[in-house]
């Protein structure tokens, strides 16, 4: 199976070509494909695949499409951050004597920080916020009042 008959392999070749050139257009790629004798149906499928790639930036300009490679932002690794925080010997360690009261009960070292709502679902969070401000909570459902009982 070669890249001339497989749209996935052809898409890889096209991305390689775009990254080598720095920037390319649909017409340039099409001309190159025609020159190499690639079937236009395979070429179209490959381009459709490229349009789904996040790493390829595409802009429509003057009736054609400009392609360029864009660097993707690295995903934030929250778990690693938490582990590194846990390893850090902060004064608020769980075995720290000031984390316990006289009777030996665990006390919250940061009582002013309210983090309870972080773990709530969006609607529950809205309800929590409303209660906190003394407002009455009105649930806003997307499909509220659209269905009528027959």
């Amino acid at each position, binding site marked *: 199976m070669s890249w001339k008959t497989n749209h996935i392999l052809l898409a890889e070749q096209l991305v390689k070509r775009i990254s080598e050139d720095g920037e390319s257009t*649909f017409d340039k790629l*099409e001309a190159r494909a025609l020159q190499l004798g690639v079937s*236009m149906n395979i070429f*179209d499928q490959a*381009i*459709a695949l490229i*349009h789904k790639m996040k790493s390829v930036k*595409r*802009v*429509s*300009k003057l*009736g*054609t*499409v400009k392609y360029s490679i864009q660097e993707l932002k690295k995903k934030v690794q929250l778990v690693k951050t938490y582990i590194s925080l846990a390893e850090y010997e902060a004064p608020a360690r769980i075995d720290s004597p000031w984390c316990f009261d006289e009777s030996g009960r665990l006390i919250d070292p940061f009582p002013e920080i309210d983090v309870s709502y972080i773990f709530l*679902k*969006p609607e529950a969070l809205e309800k929590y916020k409303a209660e906190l401000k003394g407002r009455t909570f009105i649930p806003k*459902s*997307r*499909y509220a009042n659209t269905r009528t009982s027959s």
Partner: protein
Amino acid sequence: MPTPEQVVKNKVCKLLTEAGIFFFQVNNGAVYDKNIGTTGGYRSLSKWAIAGVSDLIAIVNGQFIGIELKKNEKAKASPDQILFAKRVERNKGQYYLIGSEEQAKAMLIKLGINST
């Protein structure tokens, strides 16, 4: 309240109906589903559905005509829509980008249809 594109769509559809052209609207958008995830989301399209399909499809004397509607004459087609246009033209169909009633009338003249 209708969006600017809907206003153009209604005018163009009325014009095409008056001219006696067989056409239909394509509903190829993703459907919103509130049960997806915690905040809702869009259902994925069918495996064989493609992006960038024109808003209207007409057939005149056996000729495929793709009509992409825009809110005004300056609006540009997206990369997916350009790809769709290229594919239509490659298969000997016609593709029009229409942003006003005047452009629709010009299209009808080009197709050899008297709109009046």
